[in-house]
């Protein structure tokens, strides 16, 4: 059985180590926070916060306290606030250990496309280009194929890039792939999924 969203998030959480400062993207990456267990992980929200807490209880929403997805959130006892220039200073400066992000396409060279589909409504890259260029490790969490069954793990991305040669690890519903110098390495298969299943669903070079 391929992994579901929660299993993919749980697998991504295994990549995080005690003491890490981490940025989680919107969608499945947000779920990673539910699976960090006892590890001491500090979440960064790029609109200007380290130490992001859970959603507030009803009636306790604060318009001055939101995450990068513009959702109301809470602070923790470790929380620190700062402005956007400093926030991206710590991102660009390599202080954030890892970013876990969704993707539309990833290439075997670690190119990432996740912000724009030509001809469709363009909303903007937000902080995605800064994150993939700056953080220590970029982990992509996404379905292995699109809704038409086409591989999202490609030799070359077809969509406009968010970053070139930036992705380190790809976690999909089928398994875990590492971006190597000559192609992708399968590190792990989801339960009941074989290497051949992953190869069959992947357009990119697997070595």
């Amino acid at each position, binding site marked *: 059985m391929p992994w579901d969203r929660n299993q993919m998030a749980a697998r991504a959480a295994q990549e995080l180590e005690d003491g890490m400062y981490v940025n989680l993207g919107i969608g499945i990456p947000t779920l990673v926070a539910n699976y960090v267990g006892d590890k001491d992980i500090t979440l960064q929200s790029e609109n200007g916060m380290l130490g992001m807490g859970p959603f507030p209880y009803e009636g306790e929403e604060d318009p001055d306290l*939101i*995450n990068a997805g513009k959702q109301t959130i809470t602070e923790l006892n470790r929380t620190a606030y700062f402005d956007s*220039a400093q*926030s*991206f200073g710590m991102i660009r400066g390599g202080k954030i250990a890892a970013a876990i992000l969704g993707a539309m396409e990833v290439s075997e060279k670690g190119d990432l496309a996740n912000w724009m589909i030509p001809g469709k409504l363009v909303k903007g*890259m937000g902080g995605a*280009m800064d994150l993939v260029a700056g953080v220590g490790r970029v982990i992509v969490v996404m379905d292995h194929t699109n809704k038409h069954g086409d591989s999202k793990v490609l030799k070359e991305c077809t969509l406009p890039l968010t970053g070139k040669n930036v992705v380190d690890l790809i976690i999909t519903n089928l398994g875990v792939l590492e971006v190597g110098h000559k192609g992708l390495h399968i590190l792990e298969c989801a339960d009941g999924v074989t290497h051949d299943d992953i190869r069959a669903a992947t357009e990119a070079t697997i070595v």
Partner: protein
Amino acid sequence: MKKVYATATEALEGLLRDDMLIAAGGFGLCGIPELLLQAIKESGVKNLTFASNNAGVDDFGIGILLKTKQVKKMISSYVGENAEFMRQYLSGELELEFNPQGTLAERMRAAGCGIPGFYTKTGVGTVIAEGKEHKDFNGETYILEEGIFADLSIVKAWKADETGNLVFRKTARNFNPPAAMCGKLCVAEVEEIVPTGSLDPDTIHLPGIYVHRLIQGDHEKRIEQRTVRKREEA
């Protein structure tokens, strides 16, 4: 020098003209200078360029100026929440320059610090890098980005003293400090102006040197996405 004005309209008097570049603070609808934007709308000034992370929603924030077609161009990182914006952009009425969010913040901060350009890895190998100078440092490629020198800055803070020292609250700080720094003149709106001397100097986030005019007002502080958890989950 008196910095405190009675209303947003009075605070903006003599500062607005057609075709100007305005840097605005805020992220989404959080920490936006909503009173100053309303006053800019009422002034009728047009062909404005805004450097602002977002463009508001249809009836709040910069969105109200899109509706009246007072905006010529946006310099933003994300504009997804605004239907009127999309209509004007797709019909060619509105120019749009996408900047990566950190690049936008640093372009403002840099200009405010007298730095006309800086090199960044952000956007290398993407459409953002097209036409920009590339330069290698220690074996890595960077692109040149230029500071945004705005004609006017408009920002929102939580508290100010009468000399314009500002204190922000939680994530409503966001783009406000860099936006305040990059303008020739900066007008700030705050929830409370306290007597000079009553703010702890160690807790001031933005010194009053960056703030030229100041108003206190009532803010709607609209929430864009209200997300909550149930008490029994605790």
